[in-house]
């Protein structure tokens, strides 16, 4: 098992390298000049050239990339073109906000999604099941920006229970962004739990358990759910990865100082060092979550363990 984990971590290196080459290539090929974006629409040519020189943008692409990579392996990601801050500082200032929100949203999604899925599966085609299905599809279909604004309107403006936006300390600031970010994950987890539970409940061993006269509660939760959860864990892992990197809209609506917004703002400003840094973080987080999911999978399903040794 350890060998497997180690191999996966080593494999991360070429993946990250590939990611940086692709990101650099895309940034380099898309039109637009960071110097013009910084100096504005009316900057004189001489100033543009001076700035390009200062930022190293007058060098050929491969030189720019090489210089960046040389420093990056020493964990020096350079300074943001836009703010002049070290990229590591830009990222470390925002990463906690993103991690917190993704973690809370995932926990919320599990806490609501799994029981709802079980409820649906144990009462298939009843009113409860239909209601859960409609709610899940609604959650998946609802645009995040709309849902976020409606929640703010209702809970901050009409009822006045929660602050509209920001992350200024205090649990109140976490409630609305967590719900907004977690909604689609709740829906995905509910649907997945329902499907796998239905399948599991029709398995022979469940029928055997029933014929032995075990109480229904024990059948559902002790025998069926444990097995049904295996594919659900994959979904949870994937969702968590998505929430880490895909929270841009939620972060924007709630003025949440996360890394998604940093990435988008930096792409707009062609702030290459910051984009590279942020993408590296996304890639590492995604890879780690995937690895963790796989390991958890093996733990939940002992049959898989042999494959990893």
């Amino acid at each position, binding site marked *: 098992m350890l060998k497997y984990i180690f191999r996966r971590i080593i494999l991360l290196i070429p993946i990250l390298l590939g990611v940086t080459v692709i990101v650099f290539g895309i940034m380099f090929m898309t039109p637009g000049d960071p110097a*013009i974006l910084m100096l504005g629409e009316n900057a004189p040519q001489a100033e543009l050239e*001076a700035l390009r020189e200062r930022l190293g943008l007058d060098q050929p692409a491969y030189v720019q990339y090489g210089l960046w990579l040389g420093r990056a392996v020493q964990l020096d990601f350079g300074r943001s073109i836009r703010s002049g801050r070290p990229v590591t*500082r830009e990222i470390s*200032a925002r990463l906690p906000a993103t991690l917190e929100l993704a973690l809370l949203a995932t926990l919320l999604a599990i806490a609501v999604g799994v029981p709802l899925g079980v409820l649906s599966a144990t009462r298939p085609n009843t009113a409860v099941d239909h209601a859960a299905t409609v709610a899940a599809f609604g959650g998946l279909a609802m645009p995040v920006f709309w849902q976020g604004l409606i929640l703010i309107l209702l809970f901050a403006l009409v009822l006045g229970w929660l602050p509209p936006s920001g992350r200024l300390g205090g649990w109140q600031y976490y409630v609305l962004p967590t719900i907004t970010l977690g909604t689609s994950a709740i829906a995905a987890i509910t649907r997945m739990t329902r499907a796998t539970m239905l399948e599991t409940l029709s398995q022979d061993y469940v029928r055997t358990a029933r014929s032995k006269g075990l109480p229904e509660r024990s059948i559902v939760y002790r025998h069926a759910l444990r097995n049904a959860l295996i594919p659900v864990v994959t979904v949870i892992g994937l969702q968590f990865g998505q929430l880490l990197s895909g929270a841009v809209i939620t972060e924007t609506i709630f003025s949440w100082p996360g890394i998604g917004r940093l990435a988008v703002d930096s792409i707009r400003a*062609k702030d290459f060092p910051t984009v590279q840094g942020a993408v590296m973080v996304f890639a590492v987080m995604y890879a780690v979550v995937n690895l963790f999911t796989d390991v958890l999978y093996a733990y939940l399903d002992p049959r898989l363990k042999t494959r990893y040794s």
Partner: protein
Amino acid sequence: MRRIVLFIAAAAFAFGGAHAFTLTVATTADAVSLTTHATNDQPSARVMKQIYDTLIVQTEELELEPGLAESWTQIDELTWEFNIRPGVVFHNGDPLTAADVAFTLNSLRNPEIAAPGAFILGFVEDVVVVDDLTVRVLTSAPFAPILAHLSHTATSVLNERVVTEAGEDYGTEVVVGTGPFRFVSWEIASQIVLERNPDWWGGEVLPERVVFRPIVEPSVRAIEVEAGAVDIAYGLELSPRDAMRARANPDLTMAETPTLSTTYVGFNAQKAPFDDVRVRQAINHAVDVEPMIDAILEGFGTAARGPISDMVFGANLDLEPYEYDPELARELLAEAGYPDGFSAMVWTNENPIRIQIAEIMQAQLAEVGINVDVQVLEWSTYLADTAAGAHDMFILGWVSVTGDADYGLYALFHSTQFGTAGNRTFWSHPRVDELLDLGRTEADPQVREAYYFEAQEIIAEEAPWVFLYLLLEVNALQNNVTGFVPHPAGHHRLYNVNKN
């Protein structure tokens, strides 16, 4: 221990009186940096305005008053001498000297620093220290609007020693000015906290603390102020519907101001059919601006009569806006050889308001036979391609930040300014070139005004633009906030704001 703290808190409350309050401001975006060496963007300027001072102060009425420069004299055509206000100290206790001022202005122009606001001092040849409290600014050519330029936040006076010692950390970790508030902390993308500078040379500073919160979504900014979570919300005009709702809210007071910004449609005047003045005039007659202002801006704007905002020095208020007259437009088109109209492209960036303007224009121009295709471009591509002259028509805005006609006209209509420098229409006129040069060098304000009036008449007649509208800036305040006077350039002063 707790008792002592309580006692101190109670004493502070008793003696601090009504003025110990925090003013929370919802602003449109986080500052990029708090040094003029790194940025010249509006959200940063809004914070820097509180921390720093400039040699000259431009009031909310756009009057120029003494700031860190107590007085000044023009020694000859190319030399200005400024006397620095004695006794001014930086937030760290250092006294302000002429050397700091010379450092500020010279470093802003230093190509190695490549400051985004360097163009504000494009006219400067050198800045030299005469004595501890006197500096001379030498210009490369006579430059009349010099005082307006020295009031711009890009020329905020820095502390040479601190800037040099802090190196690359200056502006994000270390920030020291002479202004009414000093820098306390910056939680990136979350809040910037400033506190009162009790020793400010400019007088009493009312708020104990100012907190700037970047809230990017205009709808959420409006809700923040409606819910009472912030005291002031800036920039609600960016979402006119929300601005309307805030205006109707009895708990809020609105502070609206005309801005120095003009929104326009630029033609490519070197490309057929827009090289024909009749075609450009026809389009000006075919576009009806009022419905755009009503429907898109919800009334938060006024139709532009010419290229610069009415508030700018040198604006010609006698210009008549183009009348909406599709019949006349058709005649002009026929005269120009396009009786059946033509097809063309109008470009805009991803700005929802501009996209809607382009769509209304599309419908209006269809009535005179001009078939317009609307294309939305990503911002950096948009700037690059319009600077290269690849366009037919484009929608853009221009802010005359210094409040002087030179700034609002020179870069946009002078033949030396084609492309990135600002003249993206590639239109030029020898007399306008001459007038703009004269206006830049003439010292007498009345004579300058006459030059600019004539230049604007020619520009309006020649119509290298469709003159669209002047935007209003809409800010909402809690009813208990008083003393807030919005500045047309958008960087509002807060030292005088009170909260009851």
